[in-house]
């Protein structure tokens, strides 16, 4: 472990105040011994940097998928006091409301005799990769509605069923959305991209439930062993990316206006109560809503393909849940015995609200919020449930994925896309991607083992295992 970092428990490590100048609170991160080998100094530095931001409460936190990003580390979580704290695009990222949704079906693997054709149809129905354009044409008015209503806009347009909305974090809509804080540039990027997957680590995967760890929770989430599911990972596309870019410019000036000292320009921020802070939050929420609508439109496309190819009814493909893992939210948390309004930033971290918490859907309220942790391409994904431990210790947060260990260039040097395709093909996992380079970049060996990351949050009780899903077919963005 790096000099100055102190072990606090089997899976807990602390960066003490004083590790760098100006820290208001300690840093705290969660790693098993195995995962400490891939911890980067840059990620620890970034976690310490976050601890210098005004109004941060208790800890600058990072989940076991921590890695070096920009601004916050990926896997970073921080809560800021509403009255004295700040909001920062560096704690959200360019891909606002990048997130994951899990769909269940009544299908079994034996029903997927035409798996290749199904993947081909899904690939045609959901545009992927750089330069992909949507078949849907939005008017300016529709784009406004999409940013205000989120997933509900898509459902009202016929792309889903009402029940879907109950199974989305925030019911697929942040009410604070303010489309007037979304620039013309951002709108022009968002207009042609609704219902597109994007590129990089975004994916659409056909999976099978391989193992159930918690029968009661699985039953309530509508999951059973041997069931075919689909997982979608994508975000707010160019619209969200541009909202981040635009507001970073404004917030850079706000840093000097409000006399905030920061160790990294990417942490540019403004007080939550300032006009600049409110403007970013409104724009960010609008982009978050765009992302929920985007995943809802993709869901519609999946349902349509499965209805045609597998003969199941449209609403037999059911939304288990949809989580955001790049977002800032106004939430109430108990801080030293007092309920406080705070702004929780989760950058590469998933909300993991426990049983009976607000915003957990009524049918899941006794179990806790479903937490969806995608694995790297070709590896296991997990369904977990939120806990009171997470509410007490991490502002209701847990990990979001496997976390990279190899850079994209290292991955491409060491791994050939064709070899990954062949290896996974032998295991019965088909891949469709715009090119083999994308496969190499996202190969399983470029990531930490998702099982190890998930076992840390499970052992700490930050979220608890419900089911493991294995891939059958992957569409890579």
């Amino acid at each position: 472990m790096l000099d100055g970092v102190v072990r606090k428990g089997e899976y807990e490590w602390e960066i003490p105040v004083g590790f760098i100048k100006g820290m208001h609170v300690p840093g705290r991160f969660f790693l098993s011994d195995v995962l400490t080998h891939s911890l980067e100094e840059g990620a620890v530095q970034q976690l310490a940097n976050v601890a210098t931001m005004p109004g941060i409460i208790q800890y600058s936190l990072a989940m076991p998928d921590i890695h070096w990003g920009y601004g916050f580390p990926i896997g970073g979580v921080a809560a800021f006091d509403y009255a004295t704290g700040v909001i920062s695009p560096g704690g959200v990222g360019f891909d606002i409301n990048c997130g994951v949704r899990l769909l269940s079906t009544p299908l079994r693997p034996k029903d997927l005799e035409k798996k290749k054709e199904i993947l081909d149809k899904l690939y045609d129905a959901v545009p992927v990769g750089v330069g992909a354009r949507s078949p849907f044409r939005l008017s300016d008015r529709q784009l406004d509605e999409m940013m205000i209503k989120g997933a509900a806009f898509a459902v009202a347009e016929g792309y889903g069923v009402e029940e879907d909305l109950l199974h989305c974090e925030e019911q697929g809509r942040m009410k604070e959305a303010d489309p007037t804080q979304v620039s013309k540039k951002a709108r022009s990027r968002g207009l042609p991209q609704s219902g597109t997957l994007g590129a990089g680590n975004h994916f659409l995967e056909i999976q099978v439930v391989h193992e159930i760890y918690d029968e009661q929770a699985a039953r309530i989430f509508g999951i059973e062993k041997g069931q075919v599911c689909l997982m979608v990972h994508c975000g707010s596309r160019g619209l969200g990316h541009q909202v981040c870019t635009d507001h970073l410019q404004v917030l850079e000036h706000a840093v000097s206006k409000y006399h905030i000292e920061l160790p990294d320009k990417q942490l540019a921020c403004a007080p939550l109560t300032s006009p600049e802070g409110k403007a970013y939050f409104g724009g960010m929420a609008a982009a978050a809503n765009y992302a929920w609508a985007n995943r809802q439109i993709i869901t519609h496309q999946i349902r349509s393909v499965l209805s045609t190819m597998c003969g199941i009814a449209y609403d037999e493909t059911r939304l288990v849940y949809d989580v955001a893992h790049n977002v800032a939210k106004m939430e109430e948390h108990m801080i030293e015995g007092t309920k406080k309004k705070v702004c929780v930033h989760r950058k590469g971290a998933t909300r993991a609200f426990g049983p009976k918490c607000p915003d957990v859907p009524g049918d899941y309220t006794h179990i806790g919020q479903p937490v969806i942790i995608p694995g790297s391409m070709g590896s296991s994904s997990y369904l977990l449930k939120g806990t009171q431990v997470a509410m007490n210790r991490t502002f209701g947060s847990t990990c979001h994925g496997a976390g990279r260990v190899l850079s994209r260039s290292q991955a491409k040097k060491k791994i050939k896309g064709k070899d990954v395709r062949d290896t996974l093909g032998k295991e019965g996992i088909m891949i469709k991607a715009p090119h083999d380079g994308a496969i190499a970049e996202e190969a399983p060996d470029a990531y930490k083992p998702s099982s190890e990351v998930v076992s840390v949050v499970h052992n700490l009780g930050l979220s608890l295992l419900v089911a493991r899903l294995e891939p059958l077919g992957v569409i890579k963005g």
Partner: protein
Amino acid sequence: MSFEEREHTADILMHIRAPDIPSLFRDAGNALMKTMYRGTARPKEETSIMITGSSLEQLLHGFLSEILFESEVQNLVICEFEIQIDEGTLIAKLRGEPFNPSVHGGGTEVKGISWHGLSIRQEENEYTCDVLFDV
């Protein structure tokens, strides 16, 4: 062209070196395009941009963000940059050709230009900078 990719676990970190500032900006633009697209493009179409900023870093960040925007919205693979910088204002002509998946496909989507570690340094006879692309 004088840019090379440096190791960064999550994103793409480019190290750029050039004998003068306009060349540094041009090579940063080329680094961005080579990240996003494969193959070569010809200067068939032209668009122009103007950026203002109080520092060279602000100009570079604005320039790259604007190229990213123009490329995505106009579906343009940019191969030539004609850059003029004068007292906090950058004017550039961008030339390229429309994105064709069979020719230019296979690159990486860049979500944004990070401010993380962005500084322009003068070292003897050249200028250098590191730019992180969020992918």
